[in-house]
């Protein structure tokens, strides 16, 4: 299949960028990233600069393959990462627009690569459990209700890709932050630090320059892991409760 690609090219963080158009011959069984590999080999053969894009696992679990394809972060298929998106979902002769995730908190490093270290700093603010775990515990030694375990696990499937920020009209990071808070706060191991976790992580999220959540739900619609906005509601109420009830006063 023949494809016309409109790709965002940007040399560095400080320079502006623009679209370049390329034509590639791809196979419908290729993944989107394999199709971009073909483009890059072609560019290298022509002694041109290949398109920079991030990728690692190529099996939908690491969350690095960020790009906006025809207006959708990770492309038009629901619950699918770019690396798991196959070319059979596109038509022969189609023009595909590919641009980076756009948010001030995610500055472009080069072409389609953006700096998502803001997410790392949100995790550093409270996305962990500070206990000495010692020996590996026996399975099921801490009984956890099945519904709770499933909901915590669903939240834990967030791969930190940032598509929620890219999709949100406000570039809000609430879906990511709420998934990371929820998956720890719902379990007994995480409950001990629940109040300070929600306060610290939300404070850090606000400090990174993401927008506020307007409940648009574009994040849930575009999330490759189908993370639910129920987590956002949970974090809202835990944030109210922690603010009112805990002795802790925010550092910022």
């Amino acid at each position, binding site marked *: 299949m023949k494809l016309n690609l*409109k790709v*965002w090219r940007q040399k560095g963080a400080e320079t502006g960028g623009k*679209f370049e158009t390329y034509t590639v011959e791809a196979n419908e069984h290729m993944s989107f990233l394999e199709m971009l590999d073909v483009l890059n080999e072609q560019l290298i053969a022509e002694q041109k600069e290949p398109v920079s894009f991030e990728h690692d696992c190529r099996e939908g679990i690491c969350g690095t393959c960020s790009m*906006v394809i*025809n*207006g*959708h972060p990770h492309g038009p298929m629901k619950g699918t990462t770019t690396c798991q998106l196959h070319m059979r979902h596109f038509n022969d002769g189609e023009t595909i*627009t590919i*641009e980076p995730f*756009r*948010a*001030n*908190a995610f500055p*472009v490093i080069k072409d389609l690569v953006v700096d998502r270290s803001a997410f790392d700093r949100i995790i550093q603010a409270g996305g962990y459990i500070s206990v000495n775990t010692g020996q590996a515990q026996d399975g099921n030694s801490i009984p956890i209700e099945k519904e709770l375990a499933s909901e915590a696990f669903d939240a834990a499937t967030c791969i930190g890709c940032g598509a929620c920020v890219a*999709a949100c*009209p*406000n*570039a*809000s990071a*609430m879906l990511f932050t709420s998934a990371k808070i929820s998956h720890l706060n719902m379990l007994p191991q995480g409950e001990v630090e629940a109040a300070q976790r929600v306060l610290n992580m*939300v*404070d850090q*999220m*606000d400090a990174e*320059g*993401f*927008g*506020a*959540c*307007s*409940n*648009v*739900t*574009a994040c*849930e*619609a*575009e999330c490759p892991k189908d993370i639910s*906005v*129920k987590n*956002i*509601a*949970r*974090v*809202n*109420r*835990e*944030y*109210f409760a922690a*603010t009112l009830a805990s002795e802790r*006063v*925010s550092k*910022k």
Partner: protein
Amino acid sequence: MNWFTRFLTSSIGKKLIMSLTGLFLCLFLIVHLAGNLQLLLDDGGNAFNLYAYTMTHNPLIKAVSYGTYFFIILHAIQGIVLALQNRKARNSKYAVKVTRTTGTSSFAARQMALLGSLILIFLGIHMGDFWWKMKSNQTNTLTIEGIEVQDLYEKVAASFSVEWIVAFYVVAMIGLCFHLLHGFQSAFQTLGLNHKKYTPFIQLLGKGFAILVPTLFALIPLYFYFVK
């Protein structure tokens, strides 16, 4: 920063203010609508004029109405500030952007500030036309059941015989409908209420409220213009 101001200026705190003031305004709409539907009675405006008299002379109702003015202003200022701040979170715009949503209207959700501004302009014209003219005694007085009241009914009938005013009221109510289509259910999500048992009911109630209340409001000028 003091913990309380820190809370109110956090992204979640700002939204809490939007949610609580928004829900208060929804309650206000119900009361305002119930009162105004008396305009449709065939009694020469007596019931409505007496009602308007009570609303402006009962001290408790007066206190609540000042609260309402305050909440509208707070909701509007906070809403516009939030919208401007949220826009600033993304300086470089997408060449192609499709906003898919789940469980809310994508148009309404993205255009809350625009729809709100339309409502604000409407409120300015609406208050200027009725509230201000009554406050500054630009209405005639008449006596009903021994009470001397201002004839606000006559003022309403006069305004609703003007084509552009009627058209503008209808447009504003369509704006309010979309504002509530997203806003009603969104306010509960902001409060942290998203539950398998209650959310489907809230979603349905929100749709009903968003369609019914503005439709009934819009019926009043239409009835005056076309029927009375």
